[in-house]
């Protein structure tokens, strides 16, 4: 059954995982909860995909810099 408090903890930790190394118990919690809660699993997937899109944007910029294309001005 979905527990809002547990889901909130999952979402907080899933986000914090982008900023710090989680402890083994925190990682285990994420794994167990994601397996049991499809909503949270989907939340994690969406968050990861959306923020990765920003990272891709960065990669595109880096590649452009590597290729040495001049800035348009």
């Amino acid at each position, binding site marked *: 059954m979905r527990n809002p408090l547990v889901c909130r903890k999952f979402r907080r930790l899933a*986000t914090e995982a982008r*900023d710090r190394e989680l402890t083994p118990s925190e990682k285990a919690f994420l794994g167990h909860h994601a397996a049991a809660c499809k909503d949270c699993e989907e939340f994690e997937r*969406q*968050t990861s*995909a*959306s*923020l990765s*899109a*920003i*990272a*891709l*944007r*960065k990669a*595109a*910029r880096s590649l452009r810099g590597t290729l040495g294309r001049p*800035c*348009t*001005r």
Partner: protein
Amino acid sequence: MFKIGRGARSMELALDEAHWVVRAREGQEHSMRLLIERHRNRLVRVASNILRDANEAEDVAQEAFLKAFRELDRLRDDQAFSGYVYRICVRLCMDRLRSRRAEPAEFESATADQGEAIENRVVIERLLDRLPYDLRVTLVLREVEQLSYDEIAEVLRVPVGTVRSRLHAAREKFRALWLEAVG
């Protein structure tokens, strides 16, 4: 903050830079040019990430150097020029975002067959543009510039707790916008 790196080489670079800062404070143009050469690309990049406008980013970077040199007496640690000019640049970007007129919040949802286009940089930038400026800047500094919470707090002059809450809100809003665009 924003040290060039670790080890003897980075120490050497930092000492070079401290020397240039002293000379720049005395008005020596050659040292100013050396400082500009070393930091210009980084400033243009962060300004471009925040403002999404290459031309404006170039302007802001120049403005940041001018302001940094004009107020160089405020820099207490001559080895900290990098962070000093970076902070000035980010704040100038925020000033520009504040002064921009509110743009219409129009955004057509992407259709299913446009799903792949969501990775297009232009689309991502349009999504970022829909975030409130303080959330956008915080998100860019973390996800693109990869600054730590402490560094973001220092640059934006806000408590670390504020950085955390803004980042949380920014990620949530960006996720929602991204879903809306994906359809």
